[in-house]
């Protein structure tokens, strides 16, 4: 396989189970997430690749398109059943996740309040992102 996408390392959660991947993503430079280390859980359903993988943030993150809770659900168009194709690549999904940190999509938010802040009060948003990075995303691993 090709090398993993920029700024990521990928490993299996357990050697015997190919369906659970641990991805570690470092906050992209130039974004307020820089300096953060994020664990992302990728689960391949039994029907994969005919059904989309499930991708969630295992590390808390302050972001308009990620639920602000322990679940870390991500709103990603690529993963919706009507958009997912068996020929789609996980690589593309991970790139999209990383891109979401560079460029949040406040028009289609999971956390409307954070989206609102992102649009109307960027300094406050950046501040909150950084405090979340300091609190949750300092890379315990």
């Amino acid at each position, binding site marked *: 396989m090709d090398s993993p996408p920029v700024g990521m390392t990928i490993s299996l959660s357990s050697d015997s189970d190919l369906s659970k991947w641990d991805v570690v993503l470092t906050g992209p430079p130039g974004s307020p997430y820089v300096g953060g280390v994020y664990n992302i859980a990728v689960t391949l359903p039994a*029907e994969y*690749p*005919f*059904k989309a993988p499930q991708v969630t943030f295992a590390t808390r993150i302050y972001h308009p398109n990620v639920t602000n809770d322990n679940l870390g659900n991500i709103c990603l168009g690529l993963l919706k*059943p*009507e958009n997912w*194709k*068996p*020929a*789609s*690549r996980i690589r*593309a999904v991970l790139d999209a996740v990383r891109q979401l940190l560079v460029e949040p999509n406040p028009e289609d938010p999971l956390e409307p309040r954070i989206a609102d802040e992102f649009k109307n009060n960027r300094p406050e948003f950046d501040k909150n992102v950084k405090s979340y990075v300091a609190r949750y995303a300092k890379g315990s691993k």
Partner: protein
Amino acid sequence: MDSDEDFVSNVSSDEDMMQDDTDNDLSAAEEDFDVFDDEPDDDPNVIPYKSDKKKGVAFDVSYKVFNSDDIRHQQDEMIDEVNMILEMSKEDAAIMLRYFRWNKERLIDDYMDTPSKVLEAAGLGPSAPELPKLEPIPGFMCDICCEDDDGLLSFAMKCGHRYCVDCYRQYLAQKIREEGEAARIQCPSDGCHRIIDSRSLDLLVASDLRDRYRELLNRTFVEDKDTLKWCPAPDCPNAVECAIKKKDLDKVVPTVACNCGHRFCFGCILSDHQPAPCELVKRWLKKCADDSETANWISANTKECPKCNSTIEKNGGCNHMTCRKCKHEFCWMCMGLWSEHGTSWYNCNRFEEKSGTDARDAQAKSRVSLERYLHYYNRYANHEQSARLDKDIYQKTEKKMVQLQTASGMSWIEVQYLNTASQALQTCRQTLKWTYAFAFYLARNNLTEIFEDNQKDLELAVEALSEMFEKPIAELADAKLKVDIMDKTAYCNKRRVILLEDTADNLANGG
């Protein structure tokens, strides 16, 4: 099963039905010309709904019931037309029509303007000329499963994205069976929007999936067309066509009767709710869901503070009440000021005092609106309850009819009047039920009195018929009672029609 249309038309609209038929014939005859006609807007498949302009029954709308064959046939007809006019394959024509939500005229217009753009948007982008087939390609590797065995069968639609047959099949099964998708299944390639056509699908999947695919396509056809709706009765495969416009729903209650016997409102899919318009029904149901039980309980168990009107439940203790909210002190028994009770604490014997009377009056007033609602609700619920009990009425009636045959020596045909009567009872009860919801929202004026008179007449007639209907078999065998029941049945139906006509007229006139 005899449907209730029979007797509705008996009393109301024989000519009306005939009128409908001629209308349809005319429009069917026009259809042939319409193909070459430039005028896009009249769709011959749509039946115009009849408003109160025509003489006939004001509360009736025209509609047509289709079974699944009819629905398939309708689609095939439109596909054939597009296939002929635009000279594209039937599979492509079907995809185009689905993309345009079966608006044939718009499809043709748009296609004439910018064919390539329209094709692309519909998922029929640039394509290779030869027909797709299952074939082994030397040196091919499937991009999904990475198989590259020699002789591996593969398939590509006209977009050229080629995958092995197993992956293609798996993909289609996932879409059709798991996701219930049919009209918008795209090529498995990332970013390719080409829609799979039915010919390709037939090449790839087995007959059970094919059937499911067709069924889903039928479903989207009905769902895409505003003039078509599925009959909501359980397991009923029929769809009903009615051209009622959404903006007219405040004036017309478009009740339609499916061939399965279920009568429902085309506007909101709920069971027939004439004479009350959809919007009002929605409000009423919401209110009932929120209020009725709570209101009953409040009425039975609480009183309001005479000063601040907070609702108070007394859950024990003495009659000396101190309102939590405004600290007003009063007696729970007479609602009068506690301070006037002097030393006779805990034993109210002051019912005649003025402060108590005033407080009770005020209390009564605040209860009026609640009582008013409960008045209408209880009557509504009563009819609903009766209707629920009547659910297996057909079996009961049938049994009764058999018993009556043996008791009286009448033939099966001769005892049919009982069935007619029971159907009339059900329909009238349904109408009555909704008159109460309707009345709750009526502003009081002369028209309300007429409405209430109509309501009372119908109610009396229904109760009388109901009583006759419930008589023991021995009495039913009496020939005179049979005549009475038949008369009363006709009378009930007539009263129902009068009530609905009056109400529909007033609604149409903005009353």
